[in-house]
């Protein structure tokens, strides 16, 4: 699956390309129409990348079919230029985009009071079009002007984020702190369950993680540990060591059923892991699933290959974690010799439901229904979508809710029985 449509020109460079295109268009204005979709005016929660991608997809396809020219600007707005013949297609695409964001205040106002879509007949409204393009391109000022409080909020947020990003010096302090820190209070559980019907999840194993935001809050409040993915990666190697120490403790996660932990390939080949492994009862190795990341494997596939064979020979199972709609198809489970693949649920799956379900059905068939885990499932719709595509293993807040409800039901039944016995 492509990471984005081939014609997608969204970027700061696209702003300049649009200006250049408008200059060239000046002598060829006749019969041309344009539409400006002001995605930058959507509320922040509607401007996440998968939303924007969904909004752009139809226009990207029209551009691919050479039915028009698409410009996606740095503030996420899009301009689409087309001729009269394709106006019907463009209007239905606009309807689809409106439908996507029906609940956003800017769209809810309706087409009559439109601050979301502007149509242009290029030969009559060329100057207005150029002004609109310039306004959208001058992104910081423009975004603040058109979105008012939201724009200022986003700017403030971005500035604060930049000032609280993780630096190598902070990393040093955090690493030094981690050597002594007791992370047991920061451990979180996320069950991976088979969900044969809507109400009764059956846990297969429980993923144990350190809650990074709570860790940040404890060690360095106001700093975003994940702001720099590469430095964060460095940090996870220290966290791995602490996690192994926690697992080895009596009364820790290993005293329950099957578990999974996130580790780096380098950790699997370190003295820390060998020491942990040596202290473990042989039979317990089969109860542990080790979760790895694709970028970590790609860092050094030779080390991965070695670590995988070693871990699997001892009885550990391996899972590739963090796959998305964009990365899932890049992976060959057989070649990587993995036991499970974990795919993050994405709200986009529900937006393009038919197409995505067919894709997921195929992914389940290729991977094996007992090997694919649909994770980050936060709603009943997500779980239903996965089940309809043949997914058998799920993880996420919705599954945690189902587990809690099932526990309550069992407790209720026990209490009832006890009450009946008493009478």
């Amino acid at each position, binding site marked *: *699956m*492509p*990471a*984005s449509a*081939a014609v*997608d*020109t*969204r*970027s*700061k*460079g*696209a702003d300049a*390309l649009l200006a250049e295109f408008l200059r060239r268009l000046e002598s060829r204005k006749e019969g041309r129409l344009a539409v400006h979709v002001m995605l930058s005016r959507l509320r922040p929660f509607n401007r996440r*990348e998968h939303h924007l991608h969904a909004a752009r997809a139809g226009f990207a396809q029209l551009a691919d079919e050479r039915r028009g020219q698409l410009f996606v600007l740095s503030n996420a707005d899009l301009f689409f230029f087309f001729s009269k013949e394709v106006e019907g297609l463009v209007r239905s695409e606009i309807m689809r985009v409106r439908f996507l964001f029906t609940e956003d205040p800017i769209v809810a106002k309706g087409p009559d009071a439109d601050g979301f879509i502007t149509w242009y007949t290029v030969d009559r409204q060329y100057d207005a079009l150029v002004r609109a393009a310039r306004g959208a391109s001058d992104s910081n000022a423009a975004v603040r002007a058109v979105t008012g409080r939201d724009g200022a909020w986003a700017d403030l947020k971005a500035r604060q984020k930049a000032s609280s990003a993780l*630096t*190598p*010096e902070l*990393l*040093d302090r955090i*690493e030094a702190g981690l050597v002594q820190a007791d992370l047991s209070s920061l451990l979180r559980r996320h069950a991976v369950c088979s969900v044969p019907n809507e109400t009764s999840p059956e846990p297969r194993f429980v993923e144990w993680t350190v809650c990074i935001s709570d860790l940040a809050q404890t060690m360095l409040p106001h700093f975003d540990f994940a702001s*720099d*993915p*590469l*430095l964060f*990666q*460095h940090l996870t*190697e220290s966290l791995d060591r602490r996690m192994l120490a926690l697992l080895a403790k009596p009364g820790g996660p290993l005293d329950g059923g099957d578990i999974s932990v996130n580790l780096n390939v*380098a950790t699997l*080949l*370190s*003295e820390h892991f*060998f020491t942990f492994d*040596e202290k473990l009862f*042989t039979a317990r190795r089969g109860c542990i699933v080790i979760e790895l990341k*694709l*970028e970590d*494997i*790609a*860092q*050094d*596939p*030779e*080390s991965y*290959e*070695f670590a995988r*064979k*070693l871990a699997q*020979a*001892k*009885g550990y199972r391996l899972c590739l974690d963090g796959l*998305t709609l*964009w*990365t899932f*198809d*890049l*992976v*060959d489970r057989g*070649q*990587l010799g993995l036991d499970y693949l974990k795919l993050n649920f994405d709200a986009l799956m529900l937006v393009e439901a038919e197409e995505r379900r067919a894709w997921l059905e195929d992914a389940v068939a290729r991977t094996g229904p007992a090997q694919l885990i649909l994770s980050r499932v936060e709603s009943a719709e997500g779980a239903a979508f996965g089940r309809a595509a043949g997914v058998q293993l799920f993880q996420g807040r919705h599954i945690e809710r189902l587990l809690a409800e099932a526990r309550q039901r069992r407790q209720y039944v026990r209490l009832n029985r006890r009450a009946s016995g008493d009478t």
Partner: protein
Amino acid sequence: MFSQDAVAVSKYPLRERREQSLRAYLAIETFSRGASFAVVVHLSRVPIISRQPSLRRFAIGLLNGISVRRDARLFTLARGDVALVCPEMPVDEVDTVLKRIGDMFGIGRAALTGDGREALFSWFDLSRPQDVSALEQCASEAETAVEEGNATVRRPITARDVSIIAKTLETQPVAPFIQSQRAVSLAGAQVGTLFCETFLSIGELQRVVAPDIDLFAKPALFHFISRILDRCMLRSLAASGPQSVKPISLNLNIGTLFTPEFRRFDQVWHGAARPVIEIQIVDALTDTEGFAIARDDLKARGYLVLLDGLTPLHLAAIDVGGLQTDLIKVAWSRPQIEALRLRDPDLLRRRIEKVGRDRIVLGRVETEEAIATAVGFGVTRFQGYYIDRLMQAIAAKRRL
């Protein structure tokens, strides 16, 4: 490949002895004719051990199992190799363990038994005086090697070092450290330049800014430094402007493509031959969204995008074509190609066909064998020291 048994052996207390004692042992011990032998296991030749030193413990654990069960002696040679001296023991028993070590490190059968430079094991028949001398020589060489090695030992980089290096680089002109290496396409006898990769020589720069630090000890921290280096190089290139009509290629981090330094470079180099931007696969997979935006933006501006940092193992396990770059650079690795052929003789060919032969540039070409193997797969684009020498020879011939 591994068994519970193999791993369990590592729990025995290690009984390694130093090479001085190997020479002393050889001097005093008399070996019976025909049944005594020694094997040197050249662990220093296994690249993964230099990256993950703890793996050495596994290999030694396996050998140690023999010395625990039998009257064999295990000696550590200073370079990291080990010698197992086996008085009157069946060769097969040792051979089984050696085969297991070979499997463990993905070394093919040829390297196990071969007597070539890169063989993992060297056998010595201790009933022959010349073999005993050769083993003594081996111990002496190892001592010399470690003495030389000590002169360049560097401590691993820390997060604090990164900040100090960053400050130094703010004032350090990098132009003297910029180097280039050409990538070419070979079509029959015709050689055409694809691009000249332009890069900062880390080795040269390190001698100036961090002579006592191993910059590569922590990949995450090295990436951070590499982003600083990206910006230094772009500033330098923007100041100099295009110097040649040949397209250049730059290996940049995704984050760098959104910096003022790249915008400035873009303005100055606009109109020069279509540059190639190389992006590391780890960078692309760490931030897939940022990668997609950067890639599409670069293509729209007329750049070619190249996916770098791949080996044959990447080609086998990841559908790298799905990342939609114009070119894909794969580093030559004979051991990996051999290992993949053993797994599935036709796998690499299928992968190369899927990606598209014309998109692949074979990097780190240092031998003619690399070119011959790649041409067998239909790949005709190359980069590496062998190509540099080839181009120098062609240039010299033209001058005559």
